């Protein structure tokens, strides 16, 4: 679809503004259209084709000469990027959209885990070809940081035992979801992890405590930082790269 949009901008760019005359790109484009349309089977049989001009809307059938005149006069009908009535096929909708939650809806937990699985899958398929049209294909390995992230994800996402749906990561994330959704005390989570450990025969991958689970998830990054501030909101006690150096202060600095 992208290809059609980017290469057929000329279709809706017919004349120069404020003066007569057709643009050269439009004339060339119509010639291209005529050549393409004349190759289809129906034209070869009857020597006539559907007119895609802004007035006929592909409902009337004329000879190629008339169609050209119509196009120069009226332009193409709107949104006719893909010439489906003249031997072209509608491209398939981009598969990347699948699995993206739409706005406002509650994101299902299982959906989230699916997204996680996809990410791992993306990291794995290093050698599969993916060819965007606009860029040179210079493939590189991920930089150190990204590589570390993918490695961690792979490591944590191994299934707990053969045939299991859950991985160590998904179990840990579920534990933390409990914590954040229902505000459960840490001790209770410790109890739950212990219970899980008692139930399962294979104890290898399971988190041993709440702390364990938290550490694993926090290794994946996206942390929140806490910055101390003045109780009146006059300053932050922190350092930055642009010459601010208040991290060590114990007292408010604007005392007069």
């Amino acid at each position, binding site marked *: 679809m*992208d290809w059609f*949009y*980017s290469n057929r*901008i000329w279709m*809706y760019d017919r004349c120069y503004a404020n003066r007569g005359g057709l643009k050269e790109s439009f004339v060339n484009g119509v010639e291209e259209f005529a050549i393409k349309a004349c190759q289809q089977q129906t034209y070869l049989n009857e020597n006539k084709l559907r007119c895609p001009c802004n007035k006929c809307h592909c409902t009337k059938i004329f000879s190629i000469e008339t169609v050209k005149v119509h196009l120069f006069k009226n332009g193409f009908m709107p949104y006719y990027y893909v010439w489906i009535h003249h031997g072209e096929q509608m491209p398939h909708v981009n598969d*990347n959209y699948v*699995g*993206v*939650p*739409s*706005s*406002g*809806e509650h*994101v299902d937990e299982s959906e989230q885990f699916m*997204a996680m699985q*996809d*990410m791992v*899958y*993306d*990291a794995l398929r*290093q050698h599969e070809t*993916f060819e*965007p049209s606009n*860029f040179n294909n210079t*493939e*590189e390995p*991920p*930089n150190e*940081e*990204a*590589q570390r992230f*993918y490695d961690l994800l792979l490591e944590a996402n191994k299934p707990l035992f053969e045939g299991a749906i859950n991985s160590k990561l998904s179990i840990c994330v579920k534990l933390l979801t409990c914590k954040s959704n229902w505000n459960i005390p840490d001790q209770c989570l410790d109890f739950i992890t212990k219970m899980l450990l008692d139930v399962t025969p294979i104890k290898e991958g399971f988190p041993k405590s709440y702390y364990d689970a938290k550490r694993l998830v926090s290794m994946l*990054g*996206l*942390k*929140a*930082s*806490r*910055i*101390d*501030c*003045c*109780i*009146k*909101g*006059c*300053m*932050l*006690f*922190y350092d*930055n*790269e*642009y010459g*601010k150096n208040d991290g060590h*202060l*114990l*007292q*408010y600095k*604007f*005392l007069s």
Partner: protein
Amino acid sequence: MIMNMGKMMDTYYNTNFYHKAQYHDPKVGTSKRKPIPMKTLFYLPIIPRFQRLFAPMQTAGQMTWHYDNRRPSGVLRHPSDGQAWKNFDQVHPDFAAEPRNIRLGLCSDGFNPYIQASTKPYSCWQVIVTPYNLPPEMCMSRPYMFLSCLIPGPHNPKASIDVYFQPLIDDLKKLWSGVQTYDVSRKQNFMMWASLMWTINDFPAYGMLSGWGTHGKLACPYCMEHTKAFRLEHGKKNSWFDSHRRFLPNTHTFRKNKKAFTKAKVEMGGPPSMLTSEEVYHTVKNVPTIIDEPHMSKLPGYGEWHNWTKRSIFWDLPYWKDNLLRHNLDVMHIEKNFFDNIFNTIMDVKGKTKDNDKARKDLSLYCWRPDLELKLQSNGKSLKPKANYTLDFKTESKLYFN
């Protein structure tokens, strides 16, 4: 002597009462513990979050949507179709050349995490940053709006909200010089840039972020000092009545209408001139920021010929003066308040209608509406004639029960 006392009290309060140290005093016997801070700002760093957008295939491919799917001119479907976006591209061609560079919007609003209508009000502020590169169905949806700051209460930070923006602005500055990122969909490492396009707020927050106070007579950030606002004689409130006729074309019949608007007035003035961002920067340049001077007294002339409270921290961004649209109003709050007022007036709700006695008194001063003016009666009381835009009991009940 009295002055001396005052000074002494001042220093006393400054040091001991108003501005305490960073930490709570340690309790006896717990000296080995980490000290407990008085107040903490939660900052969720944005750079790793943006980098993570390029980690899964689903989003990494979509981050160039605005570039790959060019809409034909004349279609407004995405912020990238707008003038502000295109203008920024023209001013910064290096930035525009890489479609994976991120354009950001920022919004901020206060909320109460505890009981809404409690006796002890609590106002906690959030700052949310969203990337606009994504297609319309993903852009501004919940998974792609990043909470970046959570400012604790209990009070509204007012103009000093800039203090809490510092870590965010530092990160934005860093993003303007580029951050190494791996793009999984193209399997490349590239320098990711990001720029903040605009902020979206309700009206009070607009004043906090932009630096132009939104209180008083000069509240309108478009008219600025050329405003035609006046104070109502009886209502004792600022009014912007009849300030909009000057935006009409010069030959419009409304301009000569002496009855429908202000009594016996022909509007001949033109609209206030549109300030470019350079001009705004020029006026604001010498105003101190709230970070350097947290105890700034009101600037000379505040409320008289300007309404500047501070220089906004956003001017520290090197590209901020190249943005056409810097601050936007979030229409939702305004729409709700408008609806409430109009509804209450039409339904003639007692105590909530805007069509009260004071309004009728002002009406006789400014407008030509003889049928609505208060009428003095023989017993000394005044009668308020029923207006034809309010519903009476019969029609009201019809409205309710149908």
